[in-house]
């Protein structure tokens, strides 16, 4: 652990110093825009480091620590540390320091106590990370869920936060990186609109305390990351950044989730409406181009991988979208549909905007989770602001087009409001601006922010005693769904026809190998179990396809059903001991 912590500290120091050195060379000279670029470059450096180490099959603490130490030594030798900004006195004032410090402390506490919980996370996001860390490489997708082949730019950052400790205790820090980017981007966007630093700070606070975006940061989900990257793109547009820098968040976004591409028309519209009158950057164009190229390689690597492995860059998306392997229902449509747009908009204004069906969580279950400020104050403020602020109108038009594009391209389900988290940027900005003009509205905003602060302590999916149970567990074993007990530490089998929580089987320290069973006959299954030394199999779901295989193996006396808490499956009876 000490070696891992040391390597993590050195590698993080190296990325921070390197990101600072790069941004200094870019010389945008605009405070909060430089912070946005700094965070973007750090995310890019981490992505490149993890992807490169994974492809070179050296994804372990020692190699990343050595890489970090070498980089750090070179930067210090070149004098990069002498240009670090002074934080005394704090450049953002005492009030903001206290508020920011308290929120950050709460966020870090949540990172420490929360554990991965959502089905998507346990089924196909984090099994990828577990496989990468175990293999010290980035192999082809192994999980039984076809969505394991989705772009994994966010998982690169998650891997950064788990690989050093070989443990998932800090996995939510990936979301924190993007929440900071979201806040900085909103600040920079407000500044780019010509508003005061105070208004920009309020807008940032309103945006990141939107319960949906906030809980995304602590849920190992990637939609908050997409919203942050899109907000960063808008901030760079408003700041008049050169095109290569504008491409940086967009390429990174494409590598995090294809919804970033669905939002692209609106972002491009805003870019077209806000002319880059004489680029403000005086720095090296070569560095900006290099950053854009690195982001492009990082972003498209998943699509190239899928094209090579599956013959389809957007696998598992086909001409008919993605269907459930079990029920055949459409999980994701291909292309836009007016019907989806109508259904999603109707659900939004009829139900979701109220956040009245479920407590907020990172998945935006049954709600928009935009928060009290957006619902009550922000959207009405938007009506007022759109009349008076032509520049803001162009940003709002772009965000509206992005939202409509996304809603037209996704099937209505109970969780798809998480795809449009960028929309909360508009009420956040509008309300912050109106707070400047009206004290009563500012007072209401404080009240609404208070409500949002309270509602972002415990996400709905960790309520009803689950959070308490997590807090009581020793940190090294903390898991919402502890794995089933086994006699030894040997590999465990996993089978699900469609969708199942494989991640807990790896254990929080990734100490167990998980064997994904895709065989379709008892003979093949038993051969695989014997070859890999699997003694227990966990199954999930009704097993409409694989069930007969397990029934046959059970009939032959080689499998014995078990149930342990939420888990069920089969114990493997060794050949000859029947």
């Amino acid at each position, binding site marked *: 652990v000490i070696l891992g912590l040391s390597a993590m500290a050195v590698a993080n120091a190296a990325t921070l110093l390197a990101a600072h050195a790069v941004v200094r060379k870019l010389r945008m000279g605009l405070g909060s825009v430089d912070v946005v670029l700094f965070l973007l470059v750090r995310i890019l450096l981490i992505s490149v480091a993890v992807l490169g180490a994974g492809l070179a099959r050296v994804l372990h603490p020692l190699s990343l620590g050595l890489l970090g130490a070498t980089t750090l030594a070179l930067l210090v030798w070149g004098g990069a540390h002498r240009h670090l900004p002074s934080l005394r006195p704090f450049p953002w004032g005492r009030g903001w320091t206290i508020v920011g410090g308290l929120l950050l402390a709460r966020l870090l506490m949540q990172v420490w106590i929360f554990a991965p919980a959502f089905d998507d996370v346990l089924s196909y996001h984090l099994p990828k990370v577990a496989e990468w860390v175990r293999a010290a490489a980035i192999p082809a997708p192994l999980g039984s869920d076809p969505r394991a082949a989705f772009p994994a730019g966010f998982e690169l950052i998650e891997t950064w936060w788990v690989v050093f400790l070989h443990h998932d205790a800090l996995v939510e820090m990936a979301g924190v990186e993007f929440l900071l980017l979201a806040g900085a981007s909103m600040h920079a966007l407000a500044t780019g609109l010509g508003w005061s630093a105070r208004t920009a700070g309020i807008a940032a606070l309103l945006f990141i305390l939107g319960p949906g975006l906030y809980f995304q940061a602590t849920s190992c989900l990637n939609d908050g990351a997409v919203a942050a990257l899109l907000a960063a793109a808008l901030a760079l547009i408003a700041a008049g950044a050169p095109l290569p820098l504008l491409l940086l968040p967009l390429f990174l976004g494409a590598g995090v989730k294809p919804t970033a591409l669905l939002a692209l028309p609106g972002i491009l519209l805003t870019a077209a409406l806000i002319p880059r009158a004489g680029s403000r950057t005086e720095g090296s164009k070569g560095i900006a181009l290099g950053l854009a190229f690195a982001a492009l390689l990082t972003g498209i690597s998943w699509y190239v991988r899928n094209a090579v492995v599956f013959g389809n860059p957007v696998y598992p998306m086909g001409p008919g979208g993605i269907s459930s392997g079990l029920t055949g229902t459409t999980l994701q449509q291909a292309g836009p549909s007016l019907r989806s747009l109508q259904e999603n908009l109707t659900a939004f204004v009829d139900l979701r905007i109220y956040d009245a069906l479920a407590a907020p969580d990172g998945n935006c279950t049954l709600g928009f989770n935009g928060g009290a400020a957006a619902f*009550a104050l922000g959207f009405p403020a938007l009506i007022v602001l759109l009349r008076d602020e032509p520049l803001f109108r162009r940003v709002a038009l772009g965000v509206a087009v992005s939202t409509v594009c996304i809603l037209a391209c996704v099937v209505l389900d109970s969780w798809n409001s998480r795809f449009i988290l960028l929309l909360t940027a508009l009420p956040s900005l509008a309300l912050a601006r109106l707070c400047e003009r009206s004290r009563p509205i500012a007072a209401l905003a404080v009240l609404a922010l208070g409500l949002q602060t309270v509602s972002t302590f415990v996400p709905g999916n960790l309520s009803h005693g689950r959070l308490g149970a997590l807090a009581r567990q020793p940190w090294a074993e903390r898991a919402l769904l502890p794995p089933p007990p086994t006699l030894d530490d040997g590999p465990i089998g996993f089978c699900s026809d469609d969708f199942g929580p494989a991640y807990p089987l790896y254990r929080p320290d990734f100490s167990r190998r998980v064997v994904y069973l895709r065989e379709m006959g008892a003979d093949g299954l038993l051969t695989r179990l014997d070859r890999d030394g699997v003694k227990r199999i966990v199954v999930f779901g009704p097993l409409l396809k694989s069930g007969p295989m397990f029934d046959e193996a059970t009939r032959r006396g080689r499998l014995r059903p078990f149930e342990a808490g939420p888990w069920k499956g089969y114990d493997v009876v060794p050949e000859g001991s029947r």
Partner: protein
Amino acid sequence: VRPKPGILSRPEFWEILCAAALLAWRVRQRPVSTLWADWLSIVCVFWIASALGRRWKHWPAVTAVVMAGLLALYASRQVPLTLGALGISP
């Protein structure tokens, strides 16, 4: 001497038209008795009223009252859920 701009060239006209169309859709879609608590209807009425009366000196106060009402509407439904998540069921 420039002729007075016609009603069609006034932005307020188009704002009111848009808001009224949305409001008409809501009236058609939902029971009238529920519209007082319908977020979109309230926002549309606010939009129409603000297009007509935004230069009225008391308009900021009206805006604050509408926002306070919406905040109460949101809180009445959402706060119990948050309290439930915190383990403080009312």
